[in-house]
């Protein structure tokens, strides 16, 4: 048998690892606050508010993504589900004239339905989630193009628009949705038997079967949660933009993916966790915002997101392997 590989690290090193990303985030905020080219605009309340409000959608999408990822499956359709929910919300309200409350419920319901469909394909029919959710994302993108004919939907109920653009207590209102959803995800994943079982299923599905966990049902639930939260994110997106833009949702998917994997390098290293994910979103957003204000071109956004994703996947898989002792 292999020797125990218990590497006794010092408490300082361990805390350094847990808090590496938050500390890095603080350093970046500090840097752009004093760096002459960006300092004036960067550290203004207005800029921070805009960053937080804009990122709240990505935070929601990232939290949605966590559920299937923890159970060991990709869900590449979260971005598309979010845009679809936004189109349903804006379309039924602005074009069909349904009350905004009904539109919101419809949007969330559509997200949940698509999530359930993904869950059936992966958990019941055993399809590879990587491919099937990529297919779902493409299919949804096509439906969105068909429904909108490539035109943005505008003219939603001003009440929702105001919710998206105004603040409570100096905090953008949409951020409260993130706080509620984030807290719920933190609670479900870390403090209920369902969440704990998801981590076990993602760790070793065969062992999960042999300790009596309902693997198929829970995997299906994980995709349903993903769809539900993507639906909520779609409503928040409608509120922020005052309508819906026809898009495949990749502008949401990739920053969210990067954030979730970055998040797995912090707080509980080697594991997907809510707090890490939120910090991951902020890390990417603050860095890109700072670079843009410092005069970088718009392509920096994509390059930074891509690089962050690759580095995050690398670091989190190293951490995961070290945890598994191989």
């Amino acid at each position, binding site marked *: *048998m292999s020797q*125990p590989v*218990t590497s006794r690290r010092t408490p300082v090193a361990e805390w350094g690892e847990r808090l590496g990303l938050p500390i890095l985030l603080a350093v970046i905020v500090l840097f752009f606050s004093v760096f002459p080219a960006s300092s004036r605009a960067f550290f203004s309340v207005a800029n921070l508010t805009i960053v937080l409000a804009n990122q709240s959608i990505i935070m929601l999408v990232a939290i949605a993504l966590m559920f299937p990822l923890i159970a060991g499956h990709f869900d590449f359709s979260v971005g598309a589900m979010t845009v679809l929910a936004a189109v349903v919300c804006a379309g039924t309200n602005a074009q069909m004239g349904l009350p905004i409350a009904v539109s919101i419920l419809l949007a969330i319901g559509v997200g949940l339905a698509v999530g359930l469909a993904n869950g059936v394909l992966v958990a019941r029919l055993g399809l590879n989630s990587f491919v099937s959710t990529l297919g779902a994302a493409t299919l949804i993108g096509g439906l969105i193009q068909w429904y909108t004919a490539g035109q943005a939907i505008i003219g939603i109920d001003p009440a929702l628009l105001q919710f998206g653009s105004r603040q409570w207590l100096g905090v953008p209102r949409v951020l409260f949705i993130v706080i509620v959803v984030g807290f719920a995800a933190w609670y479900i994943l870390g403090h209920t038997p369902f969440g704990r*079982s998801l981590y076990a299923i993602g760790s070793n599905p065969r062992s*999960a079967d042999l300790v009596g966990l309902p693997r198929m049902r829970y995997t299906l639930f994980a995709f349903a949660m993903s769809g539900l939260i993507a639906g909520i994110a779609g409503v928040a997106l409608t509120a922020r933009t005052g309508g819906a833009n026809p898009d495949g949702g990749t502008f949401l998917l990739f920053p969210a993916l990067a954030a979730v994997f970055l998040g797995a390098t912090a707080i509980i290293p080697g594991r997907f966790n809510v707090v890490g994910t939120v910090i991951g979103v902020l890390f990417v957003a603050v860095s890109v915002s700072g670079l843009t204000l410092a005069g970088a071109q718009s392509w920096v956004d994509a390059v930074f997101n891509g690089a962050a994703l690759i580095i995050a996947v690398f670091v989190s898989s190293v951490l995961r392997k070290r*945890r598994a002792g*191989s």
Partner: protein
Amino acid sequence: MTVLPALEASGVVKTFGGTVALADAHLRVGKGTIHALLGGNGSGKSTLIKCLAGVYRADSGRIVVHGEERAAADQTPAVARRSGLHFVHQDLGLFPQLSIAENIALDRGYPTARVLGGVRWSRLEADTAALLERFEIAASPRTPVAALRPSQRSLVAIARALADAGDDAILMLDEPTATLAEHESQELLAALRKRANRGQTIVLVSHRFPEVQGVADDVTVFRDGRVAATDAMSEMPIDRLVAAMTGGAELPHPERTAVRAGSAERLRITGLHAGALRGVDLTLAAGEIVGLAGLGGSGRSSLLRTVFGRLPIRAGSMELDGAPYSPHSAAQAMALDVALVPEDRLGEAAFLDLSVRENTSITVLKRFWRRLAISPSAERSSAEALVAAFGIRTPGIETPLGSLSGGNQQKAILARWLQRAPKLLLLDEPSQGVDVVARSEISAHVVAAADAGAGVIVASSDLDELFALTHRIVVLRAGRIVADLTTSSTTRDEVAHLSMLDSEEGIPT
């Protein structure tokens, strides 16, 4: 009979950390003979094969192949191949979806055209057809490997290994019949005998006695990393083989409480057909520990898995505490307080990247539920208590299970189940890959669980373990129970005999 040696190994030593896997092993294989290597799990036969293959680097010893001598420590896979040693491992390394020709080309390289480097398929097929004919495999080069019978697949792997080899090549086969049904084994062995008669030297690793007896010229038996016996097959009657493999000596039985007279019947199995089982009857009393002996594929694991709801029942019935019992899932079995520690710890029991705490609490999560959430303090103190009670050596309960040693991982898995105080405890090879100290600790916990009233079934290929632990030993062969013995009045020889003999041969009672 004096035959020139094709392969000689002497004084081969291999240690892993502090564990001696192979101590002073020697082997002499005559040219054109079939030489069988026998021995139980961990006896050292596989280690020797891996040293010869250059997969493991031996600590010391010499290897002579066709008169060419070198230090065993210098053996590498490339050197082994060049010197004429060709290996076919238990996992044949074939790609089932690809054709025979493609499987062979992946090893030898594709014949390519001079221009553009495209594959010359006609040439490949012609070469493969010639090879198949040479090895008397009745199949077309285009046949996908998945469409072949199991024995033909083994022959394709052998043909591939020997495709470019010279006439004096030595073929080393590691458990080639382990996964084959009886008639498939016969067919493969007959083909091997034919090759040997034409001068092929073959080394055959196996644990199936009768078939080895029928086909091998010579035999070397390993036990505890040493050669226990080596002789011509004709000089090795089955009694001598069994004695060599088991060491003959009886180990002292440790303290074991007698089953209380009049204990309630815990489990009754009647005419059970499931998985590899073909009509099994078994009863188990509360507080009783029953051992399952038998070779791989005899139905030991099938029996445990069926009782745990993991295999569908084709025929027959089960009763748990007098009530009909037919679980369809692990969850249903668990609801009735049945527990299974599976054989494959890494694949089917452990969550390596989760902490010791998470690994032990996964079967009792609902116990820690306090109104709104899992109570971290209740869970932590439960995990701390288990670590202490089971002597799990770990830096802490938050340490990932994967960084513990095998024995401590197994203790954590056992703790995961025993904290539920199961009525029926099923253990499949509970001390596999576990050091001696952990093994005795695990045994102590199993005995304690039985004393507390659990019915225990232990499947093990380690007779020492069965004799140390059980009240009764049930011997399975080919899916049937061939003997139900009281542990204190039987011997290792008898159990070994019973599990290995062909059913046609007489069974001593």
